[in-house]
């Protein structure tokens, strides 16, 4: 992995914008309202039947909204580091590669019961409505965190 700088967006001066992030000078009431809306949305989305048009739309909406925010009204971004320590990063690379390798091995074996894929293991965990809704909420918040990076 290269560790040199990218002449990216970070160096470009940015116009001042209102932060969308909770607790960064924004109205806490608005943050609470957004939080309640997200919880409600996750609860509704968690009730959608798999492979249904509703489930697809419930996943499309956060993607479109976050893509729109990232493109046309980006929040204040957290500056990335100028460089990564190659040794420190290699630990992450090993773990992520191991995860992908193990998943690829399960996929190659058609995810049989004796070597289940991560999907086969996670799906029963997010089967209950509340667990699926919680996972959707975490997924949306993770997307928001990525937009801020």
């Amino acid at each position, binding site marked *: 992995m290269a560790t040199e700088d990218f002449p*990216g967006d970070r160096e470009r001066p940015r116009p001042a914008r209102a932060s969308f992030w909770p607790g960064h000078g924004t109205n806490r009431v608005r943050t609470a309202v957004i939080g309640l809306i997200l919880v409600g949305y996750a609860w509704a989305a968690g009730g959608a039947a798999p492979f249904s048009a509703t*489930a697809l739309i419930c996943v499309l909406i956060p993607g479109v909204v976050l893509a729109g925010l990232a493109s046309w009204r980006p929040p204040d971004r957290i500056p990335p580091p100028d460089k990564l*320590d190659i040794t420190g990063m290699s630990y*992450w690379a090993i773990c992520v590669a191991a995860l992908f390798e*193990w998943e690829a091995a399960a996929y190659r074996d058609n995810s049989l019961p004796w070597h*289940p894929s991560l999907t086969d293991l996670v799906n029963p965990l997010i089967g209950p409505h509340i667990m699926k809704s919680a996972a959707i909420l975490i997924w949306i918040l993770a*997307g928001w965190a*990525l937009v801020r990076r």
Partner: protein
Amino acid sequence: MVMSTRALTIIVFAAVVAGLFLLEFLARRPGSRIPTLGQWLGYLMRPRIGRVLILLGWWWLGWHYFAR
């Protein structure tokens, strides 16, 4: 006692995921040379193509687990 292949598979998955959490924990110690997950993702997202690919990966995860 013989461990089943299924159990071994699950243990390896759990170990790898635990390793990811451990790295995040270690990365958050003061003076750590290990970047946090947010730091290295942010680094990968500096070029526009990296940003697009990471966000697409995030969306794919949601589609894969919640729409299928």
